[in-house]
């Protein structure tokens, strides 16, 4: 059971939930930039939440199904076709050997997730299949997908055909508000600098990738230039000497010596990672309490989202 990549598009990567517990040997997390979207894809397919899917950035993926399976796409609005016929995203489709599935370039958003029943079968490295190209770890030989790659899938004969209505699907905007838990070297940013950071919009530059999103806007001054290198958590917002913030994401380095003003909430870095260059970001401070509540609320809403079902 397998699918074959005919065209990988700009950047398609195998991702599961990410690689955890390996920072002490210098490995980063990897994993989906928009975990809500990848988990929803797996939930629609009846898979484990962290089953391996393809994260398609920008679009342009074409694949051929080699054996019968079920397929589903969530995330960025990339027009989807099976054998040249438009089909709905956020819906489980049965596919048979010889079918061609294409995802066009994104009309809105940037990252889509394509999953199959029970997930792609990939050997885990360091406990995860997540591809981190910078480390040459995960996926198929640590590389992004390329044409001709064969991805094994489990043999699945039956699946319920779940879908969700377009009005319940996430929408992607050009501006995202990112909640920030102030922390790390926050005390080394004057009150004026913090106010500047939280009251102006920043623009996504073309230096935005899975390591981090480099933004452009009013420069933020830090009283100190560097620090002894220390651990960097997901979402940490680094302010280098030029004062332009970098929001660090899944493939970030695990330690670094630039001052950080705090860290972004993961729910909002997921939305930010759906932005392309030119997108706008506003930062707003929240307390650790509020962050905690937001995460619980989001988890509970995701669990309770109603799935609709078509007769098989």
């Amino acid at each position: 059971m397998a699918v074959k990549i005919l065209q990988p598009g700009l950047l398609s990567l195998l991702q599961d939930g990410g690689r955890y517990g390996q920072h002490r040997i210098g490995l980063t997390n990897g994993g989906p930039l928009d975990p809500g979207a990848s988990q929803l894809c797996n939930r629609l397919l009846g898979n484990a939440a962290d089953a391996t899917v393809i994260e398609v950035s920008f679009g342009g993926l074409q694949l051929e199904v080699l054996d019968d399976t079920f397929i589903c796409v969530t995330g960025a609005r990339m027009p989807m076709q099976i054998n040249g016929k438009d089909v709905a995203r956020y819906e489980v489709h049965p596919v048979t050997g010889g079918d061609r599935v294409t995802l066009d370039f994104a009309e809105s958003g940037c990252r889509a997730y394509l999953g199959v029943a029970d997930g792609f079968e990939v050997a885990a490295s360091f406990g995860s299949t997540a591809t981190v190209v910078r480390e040459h770890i995960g996926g198929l030989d640590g590389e992004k997908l390329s044409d001709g790659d064969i991805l094994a899938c489990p043999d699945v004969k039956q699946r319920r055909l779940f879908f969700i209505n377009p009005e319940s699907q996430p929408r992607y905007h050009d501006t995202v508000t990112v909640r920030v838990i102030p922390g790390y070297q926050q005390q080394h940013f004057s009150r004026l600098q913090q106010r500047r950071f939280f009251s102006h919009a920043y623009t996504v530059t073309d230096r935005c990738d899975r390591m981090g999103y480099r933004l452009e806007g009013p420069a933020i001054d830090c009283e100190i230039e560097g620090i002894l290198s220390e651990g960097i958590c997901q979402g940490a917002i680094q302010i280098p000497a030029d004062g332009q913030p970098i929001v660090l994401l899944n493939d970030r380095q695990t330690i670094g010596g630039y001052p950080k003003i705090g860290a972004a909430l993961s729910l909002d870095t997921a939305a930010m990672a759906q932005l392309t260059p030119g997108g706008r970001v506003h930062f707003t401070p929240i307390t650790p309490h509020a962050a905690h509540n937001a995460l619980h609320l989001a988890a509970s809403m995701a669990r309770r989202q109603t799935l609709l079902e078509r007769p098989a």
Partner: protein
Amino acid sequence: MHSAGENALIAYLGEETSPLVSAHVQAAELAVEGALGSDLVDLVPSYASLLIIYDPLRTDHLSVAHRVREAVANSVGTGASEGRTVVLPVYYHPEVGEDLPTLAERAGLSTDEVVALHSGGEYRVYAIGFAPGFAYLGQVDERIAAPRLATPRQKVPRGAVAIADRQTAVYPAVSPGGWNLIGRCPVRMFDPQAEPIMPVQVGDIVRFEAIGRQEYLSMGGEL
């Protein structure tokens, strides 16, 4: 201790690079691991800090902060276990250490003296990061400390032994890098197929032993 993010706290154990502070970090690392158990997701020990990453859906920052504070307070002075001493062979030569002559010239030393100072030191593994298996070792003799290159190299070979400020390291894989290259080590610093994956861990002591070209090649070193 500071908040770091929605699922992370950072504990500061000191302010400078020193074996004492590093030993505190290690002791705290052990204590926090015990105190948080399965609520813990990952730890990043570094020069003077410990980043603690937890599962925010299983516990909360108040509970974690409380347990970490207690664990760290009780760990002070317990003295982390003595790190092992690991000896790494190095072929020091301009052939594989392009910056050796410049570094020597700037230091007003001969290349032999630079090699003697570098291989005569004992270095502590202060942190691992930047790339898989990249161990930050410190500190080199002040006389051979050297600033990073103005223009980083696009490609530093695997095994390159290098100096930046008072830190030294062996590049675990081909990568870009701005450190001063002085030699090359035939031992793999990161090998997913090997057990252990890395020859060193944070807290270990590393000594470098100068070897000749022939020996370097016979140990699998590449030119």
